[in-house]
């Protein structure tokens, strides 16, 4: 009884501390990197951070500056790296620039609490018979409820003058142990270089470094707690030896992966046209830059011990392009062309309809130990499998309601390995398989899908979210069949895996928010039977729904 009273007292104390932490108002407002420089709130640029409002989009387009008269808004004057008059001496002097008056640093931290569906441990039925769930040799036990450490990130961005913007962000720690942390974006953007070649203003900018592609809807700066399924879809062809469809596609490329390269872009995100064309490294095997080194090959960016390593896994460079047009729908012409619309009770985001399309082209490479056509001389045989991702997107905004969606079609050419007799080698390749000498084209590996999302800012601090994700992939289904016995994880039984994800986010302050998301996932199964037609039939299908609560703050 005494212990119980102590427990109650401790629980009550903790509850009060948490309540005070969350509810007691504080005098300060959000002050990440740009807030500090301009002494303005997060809500100047964000609806529900990190989602940008129209002003935030214009600020980003301008190279992390106010679109006009930036210097009059800066509360921390920049440090001059040379007097402006030095420009008159160029090329006999360094072109003068600036750096921010203080390091423009923002920090971000989040934590989560997750509730898993009661069927989460049903996947462990795939363990060998007799292996108790949650023991050594079996899969880890999946708890129903779980507190999780998220990521701790640093991001720094700003402008060096002369229209040169910079951005660097890095996940210092992920899941509390730094196991998966790493650099996010790190680039310089030369804004409006069109002025040097007598093109219309803002029609041409150059970005160089490491960046998220100019996606229709960003993944890196999404408000959602979970990522878009279609962005994470790697096209891994059907490898199951018991079904007739054979695909030798193993493309780990994900649409939201960070890219290394160059990008040309132009136009504005807050109205009118916008385009981008990027040439980026190809890396479809998922090898990391630091791991792609050779002790025997000197690197141009380092010593003979590999230097920085290589970020690509092939010679080919991928190409990404995007074109969109946003129609602002206000009747008043001046309001329509302004960064923000002039509402009766104050500026607000435009009512608009945006339509866009995108196209990504690359060539996935797989190399095998094989032989020449003489079937004797060892050789490395290389399958180069061109692939593309293409699709369209739309976004409609009315006041604080935003409906947007994206469709994607993915296609990878399928190069099947053949032996010296011209016969297709049965996949997957094993030590007893004949050595490949080359490849022939088979049935391509394809998938499609997308998402549809509605955001409604019910109050300036409450964002309601409804989202539908769909991915249609035959390969996903075949590779995930329990009958294959070579997978420890089941994927949705039907070719379509889709989910519905309602959510809500609450801004406790402009820089602190609590988010909730409930994922209604498709039916899955780990036990199958065969029907009279010989096709597998799922037994006892179940849903592995999950709920997540996130607490995030930036400062």
């Amino acid at each position, binding site marked *: 009884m005494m212990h119980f009273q102590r427990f109650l007292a401790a629980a009550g104390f903790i509850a009060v501390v948490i309540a005070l932490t969350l509810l007691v108002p504080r005098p300060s407002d959000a002050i990440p990197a740009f807030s500090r420089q301009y002494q*303005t*709130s997060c809500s*100047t640029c964000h609806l529900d951070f990190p989602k940008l409002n129209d002003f935030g989009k214009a600020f980003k387009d301008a190279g992390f500056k106010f*679109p*006009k008269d930036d210097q009059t808004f800066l509360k921390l004057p920049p440090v001059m790296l040379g007097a402006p008059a030095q420009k008159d001496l160029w090329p006999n002097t360094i072109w003068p620039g600036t750096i921010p008056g203080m390091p423009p640093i923002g920090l971000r931290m989040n934590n989560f609490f997750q509730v898993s569906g009661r069927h989460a441990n049903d996947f462990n039925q795939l363990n060998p018979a007799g292996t108790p769930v949650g023991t050594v040799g079996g899969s880890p036990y999946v708890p129903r409820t779980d507190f999780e450490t998220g990521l701790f990130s640093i991001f720094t961005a700003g402008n060096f003058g002369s229209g040169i913007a910079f951005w660097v962000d890095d996940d210092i720690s992920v899941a509390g142990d730094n196991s998966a942390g790493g650099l996010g974006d790190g680039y310089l953007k030369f804004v409006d270089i069109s002025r040097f070649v007598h093109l219309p203003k803002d029609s041409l900018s150059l970005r160089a470094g490491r960046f998220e592609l100019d996606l229709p809807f960003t993944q890196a700066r999404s408000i959602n707690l979970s990522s878009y399924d279609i962005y994470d879809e790697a096209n891994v062809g059907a490898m199951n030896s018991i079904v007739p469809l054979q695909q030798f596609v193993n493309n780990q490329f994900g649409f939201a992966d960070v890219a290394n390269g160059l990008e040309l872009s132009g136009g504005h995100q807050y109205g009118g046209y916008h385009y981008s064309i990027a040439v980026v490294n190809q890396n479809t095997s998922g090898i990391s830059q630091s791991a792609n080194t050779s002790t025997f090959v000197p690197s141009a960016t380092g010593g003979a011990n590999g230097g920085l390593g290589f970020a690509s896994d092939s010679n080919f460079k991928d190409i990404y392009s995007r074109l969109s047009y946003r129609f602002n729908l206000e009747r008043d012409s*001046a309001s329509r062309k302004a960064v923000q619309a*002039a509402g009766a009770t*104050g*500026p*607000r985001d435009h009512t608009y309809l945006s339509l866009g399309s995108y196209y990504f082209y690359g060539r996935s490479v797989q190399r095998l130990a094989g032989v020449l056509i003489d079937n004797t001389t060892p050789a490395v045989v290389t399958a180069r499998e061109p692939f593309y991702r293409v699709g369209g997107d739309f976004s409609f905004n009315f006041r604080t309601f935003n409906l947007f969606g994206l469709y994607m079609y993915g296609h990878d050419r399928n190069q099947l390995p053949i032996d010296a007799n011209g016969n297709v080698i049965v996949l997957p390749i094993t030590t007893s398989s004949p050595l490949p000498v080359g490849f022939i084209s088979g049935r391509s590996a394809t998938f499609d899908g997308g998402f549809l999302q509605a955001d409604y800012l019910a109050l300036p601090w409450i964002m309601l979210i409804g989202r539908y994700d769909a991915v249609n992939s035959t390969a996903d289904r075949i590779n995930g069949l329990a009958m294959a016995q070579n997978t420890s994880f089941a994927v949705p039984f039907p070719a379509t895996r889709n989910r519905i994800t309602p959510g809500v986010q609450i801004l406790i302050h402009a820089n602190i928010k609590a988010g909730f998301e409930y994922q209604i996932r498709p039916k899955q199964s780990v036990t199958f039977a065969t029907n009279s037609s010989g096709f597998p039939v799922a037994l006892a299908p179940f849903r592995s729904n999950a709920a997540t609560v996130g607490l995030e703050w930036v400062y």
Partner: protein
Amino acid sequence: MKRNLIMLGIALGLVSAVAQAGDISGKISAAQGASVVYLDKAAGKASPAPTQHFSLDQRSLSFQPHVLVIPVGGTVDFTNSDSVAHNVFWPAISGNRKLSHNLGTWPQGEKRSYTFDSPGVVPLLCNVHSEMSGYIIVSPTPYYALADAAGNFTIPNVPDGSYTVTVWHEGAKPVSKPITVNGSAKLDMSF
């Protein structure tokens, strides 16, 4: 002779008038923030509304001046010198939400005017830059003063008599107290 008597009468009248009015001065001590001192009520007929307009600008994401004092019936011209869109609204006047008002949006270089017929504290806000803050103190009488940076203030030419003086300080609850003016009066207060 008659002329001299008239001049003497005028002189005596002037001396008498000066003797019946004085200044209220003093110091409002506080760590930081602006202070405003005003009389709640003055004897005699109500003062006519001032004809001059007062100005309040939005510049560099701030209201300038941060605190403006006007007499009741005064008109304020709100301007926008920034190249970004602003608006001005107040959710209440001295807590009375029925007196809330939104002036909407107007472009750089233009102005909107508003006449404040109700005395009280008007907290100014901008609905796109939530950090922006300003105040208009609408004094019920023409006897008011905005304290300087050191907290010193003077309300000149206050007729002799007994009044209630109110001191408003940013971030604090207004404080009222009786004061008697007899040639002059002193008021010191700390927040």
